[in-house]
């Protein structure tokens, strides 16, 4: 803890100097009496003051929240020695907006008592926000001396992307071996009837199809389709982003990825993640609510890291991109290296669908209504349409999604495009 003499002491000295000058100029010694209280205030500096003794505890109402939600921060100061005046400051990050209370406080705490200060911060956009620093400045009784300390502790708030509920999802073409919600073409245990065949020893009596057996004169059993799950790998393009500082194509892509992950996990599928950018990051496919937290944490860190190096998907371990996995690529199609990576996946036999986050409307929102800007946006739209048509000709199921519209409609369109692309292939 460092102590300093405050500017108030300098002000007092200036005024005392002025009093002495006036006393000399006017030859009025009684003016010096005016300087006595000020000199007494300054004289407290000569006294060796004890360090202020207090404890500061900081609590958060929660450490994980969704975009747009708020967290209440409560600071509790317990004074072991009297604190005449204490300034507390929370140097907030730019992303957070204080909605209730203030990020600065002034407290006076008698010895042995506790004072509390709370405020509420809203985070409109995903991210990991460090709230570990509080600056405390204690003034002495006469404000001529202050002690300052930075209280640093590990406290982070994780703001997860908001997920949109998705009812209809693109169906994976291939299923895995675990039990799930998809009807497999293979026969086995299940509830979806598929075919009938003659009874063989070992079949259960309850599998006997009595209607067919009576009609055909011999025992027949009903075969059922297996219900299996699928491996879904979300591949997020972080090579480039455009948009306003508070909302970019990457933010929209992260929201879409989070929504898709939540929806597929709810269907008992295993969901993996590949963040494809300047730095490649991944999460192995897994299932369950805890895995959603793992995916969400990884999505929080997704950011654009600029690089000229063309990243190769060979870097991604096979366990992250398992055979028979369904890959959903989320991209604004701003960097050709990502398109190349997707075409590479198709060439390796993966079932791939591409959800293109449209950057045009985000850019249009950040531009003014100038005709030249609008014309540029229209030309860009035409250019992107031609590019999407080109990708579709390569057999790639591509759907463009404007982040201002519903994700569910775009995802439904993706399923239709995929069936068409499969038929074309």
């Amino acid at each position: 803890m460092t102590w300093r003499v405050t500017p108030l002491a300098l002000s007092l000295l200036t005024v005392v100097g002025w009093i002495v000058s006036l006393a000399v100029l006017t030859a009025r010694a009684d003016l010096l009496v005016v300087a006595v209280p000020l000199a007494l205030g300054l004289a407290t500096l000569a006294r060796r003051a004890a360090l202020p003794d207090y404890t500061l505890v900081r609590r958060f109402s929660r450490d994980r929240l969704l975009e747009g939600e708020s967290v209440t921060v409560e600071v509790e100061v317990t004074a072991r020695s009297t604190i005449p005046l204490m300034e507390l400051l929370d140097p907030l990050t730019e992303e957070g907006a204080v909605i209730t209370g203030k990020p600065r406080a002034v407290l006076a705490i008698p010895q042995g008592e506790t004072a509390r200060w709370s405020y509420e911060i809203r985070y409109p956009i995903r991210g990991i926000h460090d709230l570990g620093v509080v600056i405390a400045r204690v003034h002495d009784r006469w404000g001529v001396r202050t002690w300052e300390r930075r209280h640093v502790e590990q406290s982070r708030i994780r703001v997860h992307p908001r997920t949109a509920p998705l009812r209809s999802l693109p169906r994976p073409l291939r299923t895995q071996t675990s039990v799930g919600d998809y009807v497999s073409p293979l026969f086995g245990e299940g509830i979806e009837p598929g075919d009938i065949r003659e009874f063989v020893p070992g079949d259960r009596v309850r599998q006997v199809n009595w209607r067919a057996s009576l009609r055909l004169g011999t025992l027949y059993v009903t075969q059922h389709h297996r219900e299996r799950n699928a491996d879904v790998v979300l591949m997020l393009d972080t090579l480039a982003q455009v948009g306003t500082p508070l909302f970019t194509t990457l933010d929209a892509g992260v929201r879409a990825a989070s929504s898709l992950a939540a929806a597929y996990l709810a269907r008992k599928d295993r969901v993996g993640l590949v963040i494809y950018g300047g730095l490649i990051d991944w999460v192995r496919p897994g299932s369950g609510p805890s895995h959603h937290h793992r995916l969400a944490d990884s999505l929080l860190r997704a950011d654009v890291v600029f690089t000229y190096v063309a990243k190769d998907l060979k870097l991604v371990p096979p366990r992250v991109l398992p055979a028979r996995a369904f890959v959903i690529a989320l991209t604004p199609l701003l960097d050709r290296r990502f398109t190349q990576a997707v075409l590479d996946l198709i060439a390796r036999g993966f079932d791939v669908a591409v959800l293109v986050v449209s950057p045009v409307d985000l850019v249009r929102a950040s531009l003014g209504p100038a005709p030249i800007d609008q014309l540029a946006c229209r030309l860009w739209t035409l250019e992107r349409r031609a590019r999407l048509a080109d990708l579709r000709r390569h057999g790639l199921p591509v759907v463009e999604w404007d982040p201002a519209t519903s994700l569910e409609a775009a995802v439904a369109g993706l399923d239709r495009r995929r069936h068409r692309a499969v038929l074309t292939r």
Partner: protein
Amino acid sequence: MRWMAPLAFAVVLFALTLRTAFIEPLIVIGVAALALVVVGLLLPWRWPFVAAACLFLTGHALALWGMDAPVDVPGGLGFGLALLFLLHSAHAGRAMRGASVGARVLREQIVGWVRFAVVALLAAMLAMGLAAPLSGVLPAALAPLLAAASALGVVTAVILAARRVGR
């Protein structure tokens, strides 16, 4: 508290000056000083308060000198306390700018001011009690030397304080 206390002390200073001499030049000086206090409250600067304090002092000194008023120790002490509290409340108010202020802050400030006023009054009375016998003992030739030593002490203190001033 951020507005009321400095304004109240500024008004007290103005009234104390006018009590000594109710003349137009002093009213002008007092109004200018009040305006500076308002400027200091509105803007995040410290110098308007110091300038206002110096203006109030100038007005008070002119009033005493112009009117050839008799020595008034309690009046001078009151003026000094008001000056100190003006600067102190401005300093505390600056810390409160844009902050949520705890319930006890105002009470603690007032208690502190009252306690200090009592201590200053007692100190002044003690000093007056000691000054009378000392004035008879000390030779008049030592007075300029004492004044010079005091001035040197003030300058040294200013330099030391300026070197450790925070914000």
